[in-house]
């Protein structure tokens, strides 16, 4: 890889994680610059800025339609280098050329391909339409509703048919944390503060918190006004007669 000496930023796209660090180190030494690392399967999810790299090296490359993306990631005149590639070189070369690379060359002895981005910013390049699409895509594009369907019931096995354990669905409402209102005047804030300090529970229950008028969202759990709307300013609120009677 001596031909890449002096390139500042490189990206190494790997397939096999075994001894990956050695190969990356070798590239670092060959170029003398920085090397970023990316997994080949993550490539389509990555979001590298355009014109980020002087060199992109791919191991075990296959025929994909990702070369346009690589073209964008390279700086003008940046290099693309494939080694240990899979499949006939001619097909790969064609794909690379169709994606916009120039000066594509094959080193049959070393089993490598090298190509170059043109020396100007490509702007928006479009894939040439006669590049072939994978056949499985085409099946998706065929319309028509008279086709045979798989039996959807067979998708599920016994485990899928299980229902959740009812015990896991219950949440205890009484173990919810005690929490003081923001403008607490009933002493709960101090109480909680004390508890925090001393870790000892206090017994002094307080009433008349003064928050009843704000509505259920701010009322205590024992508030006699629960279920009634927030009070309007100046509104005189009376509990209905039946509410003052004991339930028992």
């Amino acid at each position: 890889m001596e031909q890449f000496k002096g390139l500042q930023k490189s990206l190494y796209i790997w397939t096999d994680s075994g001894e990956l660090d050695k190969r990356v180190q070798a590239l670092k030494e060959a170029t003398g610059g920085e090397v970023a690392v990316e997994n080949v399967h993550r490539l389509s999810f990555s979001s590298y800025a355009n014109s980020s790299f002087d060199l992109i090296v791919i191991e075990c490359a296959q025929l994909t339609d990702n070369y346009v993306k690589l073209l964008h990631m390279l700086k003008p005149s940046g290099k693309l280098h494939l080694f240990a590639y899979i499949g006939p070189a001619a097909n790969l070369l064609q794909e690379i050329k169709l994606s916009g690379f120039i000066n594509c060359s094959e080193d049959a002895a070393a089993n490598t391909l090298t190509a170059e981005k043109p020396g100007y910013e490509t702007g928006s390049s479009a894939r040439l339409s006669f590049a072939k699409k994978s056949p499985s895509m085409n099946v998706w594009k065929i319309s028509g509703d008279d086709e045979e369907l798989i039996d959807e019931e067979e998708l599920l096995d016994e485990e899928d048919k299980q229902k959740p354990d009812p015990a896991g669905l219950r949440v205890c409402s009484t173990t919810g944390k005690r929490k003081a209102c923001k403008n607490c005047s009933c002493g709960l804030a101090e109480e909680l503060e004390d508890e925090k300090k001393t870790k000892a529970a206090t017994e002094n229950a307080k009433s008349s918190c003064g928050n009843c008028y704000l509505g259920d969202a701010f009322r205590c759990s024992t508030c006699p006004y629960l279920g009634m709307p927030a009070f309007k300013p100046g509104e005189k609120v009376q509990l209905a007669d039946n509410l003052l009677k004991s339930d028992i």
Partner: protein
Amino acid sequence: MRLLVLYGSQTGTAQDVAEQIWRESRQWGFQGPVLSLEDYDIQQLVEERLVIFVVATTGDGMEPDNMKQAWRFLLKRSLPSHSLSGLQFACLGLGDSSYSKFNYAAKKLHKRLLNLGAKSICPLGLCDDQHDYGHLGTSLAWTAELWNTLSNTLAVHKQKEPTIVKRWNVRVIEQSPPLDEDRLQWTQRQEAHVFKLAENTRTTAADHFQDVRLLRLERSTEAISWQPGDVLEVQPQNSCELVKDFFDLLKEHQLQFDASTVVEVSSAHEDLPLPLAYSKPLSLQQAAKYIWDLSARPRQRLLEVLAQNCEDEMEREKLLEFCSAEGLEDLISYVNRPRRMLLELLQDFRHAMAKLTLSQLFEMMPLIQTRSFSIASDQSAKTLDLLVAVVNYKTIMHTPRLGLCSNWLKDLEVGVELRAAIKPGTMTWPKEVQTPLIMIGPGTGIAPFRSIIQNRLHLQQLGQNVGPLVVFFGCRNRSKDYHFVEDFTAWQDNNCVEVHVAFSRDQENKVYVQHLIKQHGAHLAKLIREQNAYIYVAGSSNNMPKAVREAFIEALDNDASYIDLLIKQRRYQEETWA
């Protein structure tokens, strides 16, 4: 980077969850729309790289209506098994474990996508309505885990500053053209038929605790047809009282808009489709009457939007706390347990309401969802009949809880026009009309069976050889809530239907349909074993379906596997509702 959120939603909850995930995805720097599966060209899926699915399960393990077509496509046998190998996905299901086929739609979708070579980035999430926290009990944690996973694998980062992601742009029209009000009575995709209400009577005694209505609808044209088991989908409207309360609230806070304000709504994102309800200019009066569900249970999204402009720190903090995982218990006890209505929540948060903008209002209001009722008559009958229990009950709230749709239907006056769509239900009938039918329909569960019985008796009149019809009905008292008593009596008198009725409270010991099934066990077993009878159960989804199934198992010599076999052959079908 593109991230697509697709949902299949029946009642709007899955849509709500999907939209929340979509909003959060913007915080993480993703692009791409949130779409219902019917708004998305499913054939494009092969070109997607990252998709989040949020899928509800309805009724008997079925996928929602707006997912049906896409699902059919995904089931095509000709799709190659690795064709989705470029797709990474995550799937969240919304279900209810009180139904036997819990979250089947999501489970099947998840499996099918794996079959087609797609990679799952997150374990399948299964929300359960039976959880004390409802779907939030699972969805909040699942979503957090989703972002966690994506941030690890894709090196995306969450923006520090929260951004407000709007769905709609709202523009006030000062000089409005005449508004079309008729179109607002039906704002669904599927075309509606027009019916005329011919009768609306209470079938229960005046002193009975429950009001149950028989509504008879006349067809506007003879061309309207349906099958036994089909359901009628209607779009309810808010009551005048609720609408008035709503505008009183706006008036009280002296907001810049009122009932007469006319607006034009447009989508704030080119790839986000506008609901039909917003397709033309409308007044707030119309929105509050026909479009917004004022009695819906307020969702977290509403609280989040309400907090946006709120200058009162205490209310703001409370609203945002309700939206957090820590505030979930408080939210459940404030909203879910007392069945608090949206409007009641707005009345409580006075400072937030005082600062409300028109844009916030449109952003936070949920749309009224349609409701479906089993059709209770055959198309050979003169009218399309519905049997509707009026929902009215007490919680800790000082005013009773009223079901939106049933109370709207209850108050409809004879002679009005009603828009509604006919949709297939879940029941399928045997091909041969000689096959015996055993039907268990306590309460309003009797509705679909009146339809099939009318249908079979009509065929008999036409000279066909109809098999035995056995029906079990149950109610509290013979004199109080015996629905369709004239029909039952006539059928019995003519010896054309075998009728068994359990009046649970007419004697000291409670008698339910399951007791009568056990009593007639030998007879039923014979029909099932020797004449291949089909069994149908309809009604409330509480304990009844289970008790009935156990009664049948007992009748069939305690052979539970035999019932399982019947269920598999669709000779034992349940259609139950909460």
